[in-house]
């Protein structure tokens, strides 16, 4: 048992280090793919625990979302030279609120699972149907291109008043013959 726990701990640390490396690679390469592989790896690490998995899962899931948000945000901001006020705060608040909501939804799901009967074909069918419905709906949302009204044109770009002195000086004492 002690040996198993030690091995699991070593595996967890190794996997965490790999996940950190993948996030760094994603940030350098400006690609979200390594970040998502890292998130999946970190999620799988929960299985190394033998106890309290279901209790920890909602908060752990929220934490994975925060990691994903921070990493992809850093990729988005890689080339940006100037940040306006409130930009980071607004996005962090929105992501944090969604993570909290997701954690709550996860907690509710965990509660429901706790009271559920043993594994059965019917339960598997319900689960499969839920996946099909959820991913089918989200897939449709992702491909949606609704015809929205166009944005207003806005005021035209303006030239400055031509009051500034011309940098080409007049010729002195010009006399045209």
């Amino acid at each position, binding site marked *: 048992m002690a040996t198993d726990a030690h091995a699991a701990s070593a595996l967890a640390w190794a996997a965490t280090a790999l996940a950190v490396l993948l996030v760094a690679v994603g940030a350098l390469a400006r690609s979200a793919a390594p970040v998502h592989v890292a998130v999946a790896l970190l*999620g799988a690490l929960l*299985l190394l625990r033998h106890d309290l998995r279901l209790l920890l899962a909602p908060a752990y899931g929220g934490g994975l979302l925060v990691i994903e948000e921070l990493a992809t945000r850093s990729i988005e901001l890689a080339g940006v030279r100037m*940040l306006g006020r409130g930009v980071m705060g*607004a996005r962090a608040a929105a992501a944090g609120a969604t993570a909290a909501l997701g954690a709550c939804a996860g907690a509710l799901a965990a509660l429901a699972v706790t009271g559920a009967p043993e594994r059965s074909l019917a339960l598997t069918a319900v689960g499969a149907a839920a996946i099909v419905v959820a991913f089918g709906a989200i897939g449709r949302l992702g491909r949606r291109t609704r015809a929205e009204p166009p944005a207003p044109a806005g005021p035209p770009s303006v030239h400055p008043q*031509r009051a500034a002195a011309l940098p080409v000086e007049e010729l002195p004492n*010009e006399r045209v013959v």
Partner: protein
Amino acid sequence: MTGSLSPRVAGLLAVAGAGAVAALASGRPELAVLAAPLLLFAGVGLALAQRPRVSASIELDRDRLLEGERARATVTLANHGASRAEVELLLAGSALLALEPPGPVLVGVAPGATTTLELTALARRWGAHSVGPALVRVRDPLGIRAWSGQLGGRLALRAFPREQRLRELVAPLATQPFLGSHVARVRGEGIEFADVRPFAPGDRARQVNWRATARRGALYVTERHPEHASDVVLLLDTFAEARGGAGGTLDAAVRAAAALARAHLARRDRVALVDFGGTLHWLEPAFGTAQLYRIVDALLASEIAFSYAWRAVESIPRRVLPPTGLILAITPLLDERSLRLLADLRRRGADVTVIEVSPFAHTPPGRTESDAVAHRLWRLQREAIRARLQSLGIGVAVWEEDAMLGPALEGVNRFRRSARRSLRV
């Protein structure tokens, strides 16, 4: 604006899907619980994201400046939509216009609000530049969708070349019968002394040279050289250039052309411009400030246009090349076509002088031994080309861009004086 999904959506759904399917297959519900926040985030983001209604306008505080100066660009963003818009903005501009900050700017605009950004545009070089439009990418509050497009218009910003003040110019051989600043060879009314001769019927009393008359006992009059204007044609070679990281020979050639145009027009000469290269443009000779503006405007549009076309003197309209005018060819002497043109003009009796814009500052030797030898051979070849032109009676002023142009022109004036004596130019 074109809408697209953030690359993270596919990743989020893949990870959430893997967790959900793994939970189903393994019977471990905690995997599905892990996946729930990711799935919820993607679903909520996709459901709530709405096409933004953002507009932008761009203002410049000036539309003309000298190269090396800055203009201020103000971009006003307005959000007409119902939700907050995160706008990543990059102001487009000509390649030779350095916009600060150089990269994109990220701002948030609340619904119904406007935000103003101030950027500066530095004109690295002369030319007709443009500022705008604004390239934007607008994201929803969760960063799930993005809409890209262009907002605002394109504004012109003209950067004029910095000119050297020239005191010494190439003295033309022939002048025109218009009042100007050059001492003409002919004799007439003027200030410069020419000769003393016996009085002839028609001479005016004030022309009488009393000292000579008293010495010789007969009436003698003083003859003078009048001051006339001349015709000058600036011939800008745009067949080829040498360009390094910071600039090229065309940049220097345009500055020299602008300085020469100003100096000659200030001396009441008529100045024409011929842009001779892959494309051919010209301005007929004229006087005054208006001509200076026309020439500078035409110079701003100069660029190297690659072409295999063989151009000859006949391509240039006769009215642009006055028969007794001084032709100042500003060229890096890099293309055989420009050398042929100069020789042709000279053989037709034109008064031609070359201002050679040295390409060496922009063309370091190559790294291999063979390329280093080629570079030294190139210097010798260019000296031979210069000698070839000089043997035809064409003076060549070699000008390094960071030096003053005046001393180079003094040197060519000395050559022209000695060439006149020996070659009857």
